[in-house]
């Protein structure tokens, strides 16, 4: 701004003390007002919530005392007195409620983790089939989506529990997969690794290997983002980690399930309740993820495909290098939604009798201890934390792949 032309304006608008006209004030009047308004509103809401919370707590405590019910979290250290049909950590009748909680949580996490990975893969395959140039492939995928997503999840679950798994052969006539895995009406038997004496060392080695791979990848990616050639030690870290992990895993003894008497011994036995829960979650959610994938792919402009075609790329490469990376951005929010839904829906484990967190903690433990408020609070906190983790992870990913919009 040329001062000579703007004498009057600068006298009027930039303060009589003749301060520097280019110095930007911290906030404009509208921003100041907006901020003041926001503080007032937030204070009012905070006051309201705090009042409600105090009333709620006082009321609950009074009610509990009036009925002579015990309260507090001390029950977590008391003996639970029951066994769990399936758990990743040992749970004996002498174990505490705290350990039952932990075992239930781990079971829920196991179901959620396996289902999320598998349903994403299945959903992608079906979603891409929905946009396939081949009409039969499209029709089959469409049929899957329309049938599967329009049936209640509970129906899927009961279908697997009562129809499909019951109709499997008995243990003696189990379906074998290359003599290492077996499927019968009593569950799925898989080979399991036995680490022997050096389990801790082996776990540490595998963790170190994974860390090396991650660090190596990050180093290479950062260098590439700066437009430099990635340093050699990045590649060395990735290769070293892979080789080390392969070596560590190859030292494991795989215990293969063997028929002994009326059941298989050794290896990992997945109970039918687990198989039906996971199968239902995978198949049901895959239909929704397929629609998310289809919408994502169709959101990428036609020009992108044409530009890639004009460069001589094949359809498969166009999908992988051009379409899917762009579609992912659109897919992230609904995918996060679907994952959260899956985690919450895994609580349907109770219906088929799989000992997940809700079943053993919100169910059995609550019935035995009567600590309803505490147990509901803890369980709610767990699910809120899990959902928040999904939201955080996906929004971190979304930020990383964000496009610069003009």
């Amino acid at each position, binding site marked *: 701004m040329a001062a000579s032309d703007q004498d009057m304006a600068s006298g009027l608008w930039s303060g009589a003390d003749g301060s520097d006209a280019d110095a930007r004030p911290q906030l404009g009047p509208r921003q100041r007002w907006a901020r003041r308004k926001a503080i007032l509103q937030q204070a009012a809401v905070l006051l309201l919530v705090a009042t409600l919370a105090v009333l709620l707590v006082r009321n609950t405590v009074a009610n509990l005392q009036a009925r002579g019910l015990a309260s507090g979290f001390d029950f977590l250290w008391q003996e639970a007195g029951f066994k769990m049909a399936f758990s990743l950590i040992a749970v004996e009748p002498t174990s505490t409620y705290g350990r039952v909680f932990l075992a239930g949580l781990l079971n829920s996490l196991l179901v959620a983790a396996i289902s999320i990975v598998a349903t994403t893969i299945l959903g992608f395959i079906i979603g891409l089939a929905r946009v396939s140039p081949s009409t039969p492939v499209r029709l089959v995928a469409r049929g899957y989506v329309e049938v599967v997503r329009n049936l209640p999840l509970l129906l899927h679950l009961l279908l697997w529990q009562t129809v499909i798994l019951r109709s499997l052969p008995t243990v003696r006539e189990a379906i074998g997969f290359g003599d290492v895995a077996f499927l019968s009406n009593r569950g799925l038997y898989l080979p399991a690794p036995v680490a022997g004496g050096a389990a801790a060392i082996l776990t540490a080695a595998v963790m170190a290997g994974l860390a090396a791979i991650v660090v190596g990848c990050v180093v290479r990616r950062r260098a590439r983002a*700066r*437009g430099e*050639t990635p340093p050699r030690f990045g590649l060395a870290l990735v290769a070293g980690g892979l080789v080390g992990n392969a070596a560590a895993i190859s030292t494991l003894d795989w215990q293969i399930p063997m028929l002994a008497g009326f059941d298989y011994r050794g290896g990992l036995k997945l109970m039918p309740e687990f198989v039906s829960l996971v199968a239902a979650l995978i198949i049901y959610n895959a239909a929704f993820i397929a629609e998310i994938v289809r919408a994502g792919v169709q959101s990428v*402009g036609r*020009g*992108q495909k*044409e*530009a*890639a*075609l*004009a*460069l*001589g*790329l*094949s*359809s498969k*490469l166009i999908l992988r*290098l*051009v379409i899917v*990376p*762009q579609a992912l*951005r659109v897919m992230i929010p609904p995918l996060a939604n679907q994952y959260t839904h899956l985690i919450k829906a895994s609580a349907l484990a109770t219906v088929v009798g799989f000992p997940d967190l809700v079943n053993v903690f919100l169910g059995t433990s609550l019935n035995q201890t009567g600590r309803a408020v505490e147990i509901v609070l803890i369980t709610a906190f767990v699910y809120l934390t899990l959902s928040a983790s999904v939201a955080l992870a996906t929004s971190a990913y979304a930020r990383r*792949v964000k*496009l*610069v*919009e*003009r």
Partner: protein
Amino acid sequence: MSVNATIAVRSLSKWYGSWRALRDISLDIAGGTCTVLCGPSGSGKSTLLRCLNGLEEWQQGEVAIGGVAVGYKARELRRLRRDVGMVFQHFNLFPHLTVLDNVTLAPRIVRGRRRGESEDHAMHLLERVGVAEHAGKLSSALSGGQQQRVAIARALAMQPHVLLFDEPTSALDPESVKEVLDVMIDLARSGTTMVVVTHEMGFARRVAGRVIFMDKGSIVETGAPDEFFDCPCTDRAKAFLGDIVNR
């Protein structure tokens, strides 16, 4: 560029449903020349251009580039498109990749070039079109004119025998139009075989070897730019040029 970049079109006809977009087009374009396709919108010029690299399918006739027929099988089309570059009206850069990756993607994936080698070549091309300093940015962060110049570099990176331009300046502001046209003029003068659909008559006058005027799916008139602009033979061409000048 290659010696054999001649384009031959023989009685090409195309219908969209029952509407005939191209009517019995026959055309020969010599290698090393710049040809401008013009005409009112809906005249079929873009459709004709997109038939040359098989982005459009047609119902009758034949197209050949460098003596090789433009086929219908995916494999044949891929082989042809390696050697026929295309620049689009809306640039169609890959917004999730950096400028440099946009240019090196096809040479690396389709031609199997090594990263270092293709990046050196890409930087050379980006310098030629004047956007080298933006190489590391995401392509979506560039202005329209810059994006279109990157798109030209991306097409050149495959070292094509023929370059097709589909209204390359129609989506740009006047200043960017000049940036892009300067690059295209430079290319034309260096003897690149170019087929350009454009309304930029100044460009046609300066560097085109031949101007082809289309209307309603047919070639109405063709000639050297001076003849075409100064004394068009047909009434339709006169009307079209009158519209453009008076606009």
